[in-house]
Every structure is written in C-alpha cells, then in structure tokens.
C-alpha cells in the first residue's frame, strides 16, 4: 500500500512473525498477575480500538458510542448463563447479532447526519442505552450481573487458577481484529470505506452505495466490539451498567486509535501499547480509578502528539506523498 514506508513485504512479515512470537511467550516470561493482566487489557483495548477504526478510521464515521456494543456483548455473555444456563460462547454469538442489529438501527437514521452530528448522536444514544440497562430488572438493573463461579472450564470459559486462557483468547481477539482489518483494507469494501471517508459525494458518483457500506462498517465494528465485551465479562465475572457502558470507554477507544494513527492497520495496537500501561500506572501511582488523572495524562499525550504529528504515532513512519 502506498502509505507504508517499511519497504519489502518479506521484512514486514518477519516483523509480524516476531511480534506474534513475542506475544506467545510473554506470559511465560512475565508470570506475575499484574503484567499478564496488563497485556490482556492491551489486547482487549487494541481490539476494541481496531473495531472502532473500521467505522471511524476507514469509513470516517466517528462514533462516540461504541460502549453500547461492548456492553451488549458483555450482557449477552453474562445473561445467557444466569437466565438460561447456556455457555457464554453462545452469548458471544448472540451479542454479535444483537450488536449488529442495534448498530444498523442507530446507523440507519444517524448516517443522514454529517460529521460532528453523527458523533454527538452516538454519544447521546450511548447514554440512553446505559440508562435503559440501569432500569431493566431482568438483566439485574443497576445492581448488575454476577456470573456464577465455577471450576476451571472452557465450556463456561472461567479460569480461577490461571490467566493463561484469558491471555491467549484475548490475543486471538486482537489478532482477528487486525487480520479482518487488513483483509478489509485490501478488498473492494475497504476501498469503498475509504472513498466514503474522503469524499462521500465523489464516491457515490463512482457507483458506491455509501449508505449501505456505512451500515456494513457499523455492523463489523459493532460485532467485533461486542465480542470484546463478552470476553471482558468472562474475565471479570461481574458486570453492571457502569462498568460496561461507560462513556469513558467509548472515548478511550477513540483516543487509542487517534494516538496510534486513525485509519491505519497498526494504530490501534500502538495506541493501546502506550495508553493502557499509562492509564494503569497513573491509576496505581497517582490516584485511584475515577480521579480522572489517567484521563489528564491521556489528554496531554493526545495534545502533544496532535501538535507534533497530527497523523498519530504511525504518521512518523509514513512515506511523504511524492511531491
């Protein structure tokens, strides 16, 4: 692709291979819970930011409501267990389907709105959905849902004695998001997404059914985000509207993608590798959750990056367009 400065394909693939191998052995080098937990969060947020990027980065439709899909996935995984005794894996699928449905419902009217208005609409809808869950008794209302604790099991995807399964499953989530994004970028759909982002009217004049493709981007983004939510629910085993529908999560995934490089393949990973440890450490050393100091640190970093390199960190590696 024109936008990479790292020459040969061979070099790129060996780099990916090395990264992947490092990720595979990491939990055997860092055996403590903290570094493993940190990596799991990086994978989760890398995947979520990557999912956001399909809609916000490739297609240019900035959603500030992706927590909706995260929460839907989390609740789907939890509620199928507490209400019906199903495996959470069925909840993963159900969550994806529900997220796609909700995404299309939101997208259909909201894609008529341009730019900032779309972002604002998704932000507001996110808050509305959160409030709905607060008041929905069947899913636990404001109290939330405790997933019943079991012995280590793949069927119910719970492991009390080791983090390794969570680690590898979350890694698989991130890798799937990246592989999907890479495949998208190379396909007609990816070209259409980017054309819509660049100039929707010009794209339509070339036969691109913009609405349909934006809905597709929304569906892909929603489904992926929902999977992240389901996996998160199984990792923490307790969810409530505050923990899985926070506006902060919607904003965090955007910040991660922006910091790394909007619309790029690896930006979400780069952003997560920087921001997640930053927020974890500020939380530990400066103040507890909710003090907002981690957010101030985020904000500062974003300001600094946008001043020196508006295209995000990956922008430093981008070939300047030939003059």
């Amino acid at each position, binding site marked *: 692709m024109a936008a990479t400065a790292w020459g040969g394909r061979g070099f790129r693939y060996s780099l990916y291979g090395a990264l992947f191998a490092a990720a595979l052995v990491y939990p055997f080098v860092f055996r403590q819970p903290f570094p493993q937990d940190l990596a799991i969060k990086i994978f989760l947020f890398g995947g979520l930011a990557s999912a956001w990027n399909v809609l916000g980065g490739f297609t240019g439709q900035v959603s500030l409501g992706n927590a909706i899909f995260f929460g839907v996935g989390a609740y789907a995984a939890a509620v199928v267990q507490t209400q019906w005794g199903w495996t959470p894996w069925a909840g993963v699928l159900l969550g994806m389907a529900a997220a796609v449905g909700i995404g299309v419902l939101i997208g259909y009217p909201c894609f008529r709105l341009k730019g900032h208005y779309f972002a604002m609409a998704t932000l507001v809808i996110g808050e509305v959905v959160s409030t709905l869950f607060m008041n929905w008794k069947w899913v636990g209302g404001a109290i939330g849902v405790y997933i019943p604790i079991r012995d280590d099991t793949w069927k119910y995807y719970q492991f009390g004695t080791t983090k390794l399964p969570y680690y590898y499953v979350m890694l698989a989530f991130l890798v799937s998001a990246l592989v999907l994004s890479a495949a998208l970028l190379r396909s*007609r759909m990816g070209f259409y997404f*980017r054309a819509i982002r660049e100039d929707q009217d010009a794209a*339509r004049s070339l036969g691109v059914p913009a609405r349909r493709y934006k809905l597709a981007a929304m569906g892909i983004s929603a489904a992926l985000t929902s999977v992240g939510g389901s996996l998160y629910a199984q990792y923490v085993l307790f969810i409530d509207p505050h923990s899985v529908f926070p506006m902060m999560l919607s904003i965090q995934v955007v910040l991660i993608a922006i910091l790394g490089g909007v619309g790029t393949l690896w930006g979400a990973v780069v952003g997560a590798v920087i921001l997640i440890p930053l927020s974890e450490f500020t939380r530990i050393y400066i103040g507890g959750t909710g003090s907002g100091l981690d957010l101030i640190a985020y904000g500062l970093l974003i300001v600094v990056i946008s001043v020196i390199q508006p295209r995000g960190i990956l922008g430093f590696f981008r070939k300047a367009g030939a003059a």
Partner: protein
Amino acid sequence: MSFLTVGGVTKRFGGLSANDDISFEVARGEIVGLIGPNGAGKSTLFSCIAGYHPVTSGTIDFDGKRISGLPPEAICRRGVARTFQIARVFKEMSVLENVMVGAFLSTSSRGEAEAHARAVLGRVGLSGKAEAFARSLTVSEQKRVQLARALATRPKLLLLDEVMAGLTPQETAEAVALVRSFRGDGITMVIVEHVMEVVMPISDRVVVLDYGKKIAEGAPEEIVRNELVIKAYLGEKRGAKH
C-alpha cells in the same frame, strides 16, 4: 434515437432558478458541448443528470430508462459518470487507489481493478504518479485523476465539467486528443468548457445556457453566428473566466 433526454428540467435553489425548463437530447456516440456564461447553470444541470441534485421538476431519461429520481450511485451504475468542476479527489489515497475505486464498479477482484486502473492511468498519462498521494498533485493533475476515475467505471455517458480549464496550450491539445479518443470507445459525452477554441472543434452539437435557460442549440458553426449567444457572451462581456 435519443440516448440522453433532458425533458423540461428545472432546478431551483430557494428563489433562484439555476436551471429553468431545459430540454435537449443527446444521441448515442455524440459529443455535445454545453456552454454559457458564468452562473448559467451548466454545473447544476450536470448535477441534476448525475443525481447529485434532485430536480425540482422535469425528467431525465438515459438509455431508454428514467434516471431522474435515482440516487447518484444508481445512475453511475446505469453508465453515467461525471467529473466535478472543482476536483474532488480522495486526497489521502494514492492516485492508483483513487482510480481503483472507479474500477471496482465492474469487478470485486482487487487484481482486476488494479490492472484496469493502471491501464486507464496510462491512457491519461498519469502512470508516473500512480503511487503518489492524490493530495500531492497539482490542480490539473487532480483533474486528470478525476477523469481517470470516471473513465474507470466504464461509462456509456461521460459528463466533463471544465476538465481543460487552466491547462497550458500544449496540455489542452493533449486533452482534446484524449477526449476525442474516448469516442472510439463508444463513449457519449457532454462537455462543459469556457474556451470556445476548445469546445467548438470537438463538439458535434452545442447547447447554450444563459441565466438557467437554454437560449440556443445547434451545430458549432451556427452557434458562433447566433445573435442571442453573441449577446450573452460578448455583448455583456461576461464570458471571461479565470
């Protein structure tokens, strides 16, 4: 038999009639020049034909079917491609990728789209810029990207809005030869240009707009002698452009 039929098209913006009851026909394979002073409504008419603006009243038929009322993407799928007067390229995509977006209309294969896009780029003389970001090109190069992009959709009717404005005489000559060559592909064209020395020789017929109305239509030789046209252009000294 008429290929494109513009039937009494009116387009109002608030109180202003940018197009006022315009009717004309274009036959298959024809090159029709669409001229008129600044603000006459030429670009607006293109936008109506291409579905970018809904018409206020009137109808547009193409290849035997009604196209007015369809969205732009559907009209492009029917075989109508247009360029924008002010180039609208996909800035953060490479020139090749820009043209591939057009090429993807007729194939979902990336390889085929790329091959077709490269062929079209060669034809418009932009092969050397294929990998450059579209934003890094000059205005006249961006116009050629737009042309290539439109051409890559394999159109039957091409609407060209001032693709030659701002070119050097040498470039203009090349562009004229290029546009003529499209005819060999069986592409019907409507061409908006301000430079009479350009439009008149390549047009089979010329349609003249002024203040949103069609004031004349005919062979180029007739148009240059037409009283109303001369008045619209010269009498009021409004023809100068750029």
